[in-house]
């Protein structure tokens, strides 16, 4: 276990390093992009631009700039170019919004897709199976931002059942919190429900035809027992992997379109604004933030794997 943790941490640091280099490099190789001009404003004279450039160190060699930026990020002093806000503070302040958007949505899609995928596989070829699969293929064909827009139009404007925008912190009023976040949850969950239930269904159908399932039935276990302990448990493996990654990416701000459409002040919205303004520090911090969660959840994944399957040992 100690060995596992150490190796995972080493690879995590390596990956974070690589991600920061790549993102920094991407913006560094663009010839026409001059952050000094962005900071100095639209009507700045060349002298002002040069001054800003000097102040922020954009006239230094690339590796010096990189080192300086990393130092600022890890000491919590990095500011964005457009509004001169502290990026780390923005992330800290906005993270609870993203959490309350992503965590319930993830629970929703996990439970729904396991239930729907199982029903579909157990009633294969039947009415329920066809209905679920049609819904699932529709779900994976709609881009998230369009679904969010359609839900907003139908259930906030056309039928005023839900508020159209805004966020209420859970500690202020849990009922209002859930009421305001219901449509965003649905719009995030639908895509994953469609995707996961399709994958789970085909895994289950592969597994049902395995020899050990017949053996388990032959030795007298009921259908329910066999399904729950042998078939479902084995079919959940790929789902666990997918879930870890998707969840990590969403926590890192990949819900940016949902946050933008529903005007939720989470980190995704901040990243989306930064993308629109070509503001490098938030994009850089956002990418590293996401990479951090990806590494964390892939390590957790391995632990869950070992729990689900006793043959797996934590060695990687």
């Amino acid at each position: 276990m100690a060995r596992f943790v150490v190796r995972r941490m080493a690879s995590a640091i390596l990956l974070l390093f690589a991600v920061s280099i790549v993102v920094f490099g991407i913006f560094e190789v663009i010839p026409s992009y001059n952050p000094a001009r962005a900071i100095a404003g639209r009507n700045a004279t060349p002298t002002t631009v040069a001054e800003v450039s000097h102040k922020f160190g954009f006239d230094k060699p690339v590796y010096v700039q990189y080192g300086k930026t990393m130092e600022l990020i890890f000491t919590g002093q990095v500011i964005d170019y457009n509004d001169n806000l502290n990026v780390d503070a923005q992330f800290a302040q906005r993270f609870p919004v993203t959490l309350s958007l992503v965590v319930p949505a993830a629970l929703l899609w996990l439970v729904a897709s396991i239930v729907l995928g199982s029903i579909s596989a157990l009633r294969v070829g039947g009415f329920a199976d066809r209905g679920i699969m049609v819904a699932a293929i529709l779900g994976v064909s709609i881009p998230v931002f369009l679904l969010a827009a359609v839900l907003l139009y139908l259930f906030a404007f056309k039928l005023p059942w839900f508020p159209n925008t805004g966020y209420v912190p859970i500690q202020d009023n849990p009922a209002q919190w859930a009421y305001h976040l219901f449509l965003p949850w649905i719009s995030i969950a639908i895509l994953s429900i469609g995707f996961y239930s399709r994958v789970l269904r085909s895994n289950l159908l592969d597994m049902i035809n395995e020899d050990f399932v017949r053996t388990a039935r032959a030795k007298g276990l009921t259908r329910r027992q066999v399904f729950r302990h042998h078939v479902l448990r084995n079919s959940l493996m790929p789902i666990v992997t997918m879930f870890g990654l998707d969840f990590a990416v969403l926590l890192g701000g990949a819900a940016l379109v949902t946050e933008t459409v529903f005007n939720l002040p989470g980190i995704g919205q901040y990243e989306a604004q930064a993308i629109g303004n070509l503001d490098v520090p938030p994009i850089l911090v956002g990418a590293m933030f996401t990479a951090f969660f990806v590494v964390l959840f892939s390590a957790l994944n391995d632990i869950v794997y070992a729990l689900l399957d006793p043959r797996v040992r934590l060695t990687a």
Partner: protein
Amino acid sequence: MVIPDPRSDTGHPHPEAIVGTSPGGGTTGIVITPGERVADPWAEGHHPPAIGPWKLAARRLRRNYVAQGFLVLFLVLVVLCLLAPFYASHIAHIGPNTNNVTGTINIGGKTTDVVSPDGVPIGPTFSSRYFFGADSNGRDLAVRLLYGGRTSLLIGGIATVIIIVFGTLVGLLTGYFRGVADMLLRPLMELIWSFPVVILGVALGTALALGGIGPVKGNSLYIPALIIGVVFIPYLGKPIRGEVLRLREQDFVQAARVQGMGSWKIMTSEILPNLASMITVFVPMMLAYAILLEAYLSFLGAGVQAPNASWGTLISDGLAYIQTTPTFCLVPGAMLVLTVLSINVVGDGIRDALDPRAQVRVRT
């Protein structure tokens, strides 16, 4: 003794292969006495044709009417988008990027501003001009919808070609040579893989949209196509590599090696044909992913750049008017969903047709 004809999947014995041995040894019940020549039970013209896996797949696909229906829908959408220049010049009489802020049009004898003095564009007229209304620059949305479709499909198509070519190449090289190729290519793949597609796509998109690469301008359509292609390469490369690792240990590859075949020849003539069905399954899947990612990037402003339109940018533009004129956002949205849906359904059909277990599965 009956030797089943390997070319026939129905298992009918090929009469030429019957070598007389013991009577009653065959499953067909034809009694053969040694030395006697048997009359061909499948005389000329009644011989069941040999069927290869591709033919079998095509046969299964021909019975899948749902997939065929959606294939037709997809082709109709493609043809509609290809006809965009015709629509623009002969019906709407306006180009996709022609502004007309101060213009007026005549609907049913009433003259209306294309864009009202306070900047609100006209809604759907359902006549030849401004069929779906205008945008805030007075551009015809129906024309932009069709041109946007061309953009989305073109980018999706180019990206898919990049994914298939380079994904297969990377998978083949790393799977076959392992060692050096693995050392060079795998870290790169792992890096792209562990990067969330959206973040990498967005970072590259915003960066390149501004500066372009070399001679390619920042607002060129090839930039999003290239980005989407690169981002998805590991999605094909990884499974291909796994399959190549399995195939290279198979007897027929060993046999080819023993015969003195070179590595390149083995890869192209022994391994690649065995990857064909896997790649075929990935083509529609990757096309659907690419079109969706293009819309996503364009929505965020990191994909297709002005003045070009794509379904993603049109949805994004239309979102501002969702309370007053939802069709601005819903019409391009419907086009996008129909296209991706039809690709997905056809892709499912192809997968089921190529996967022999698909038949077994349905019966369980």
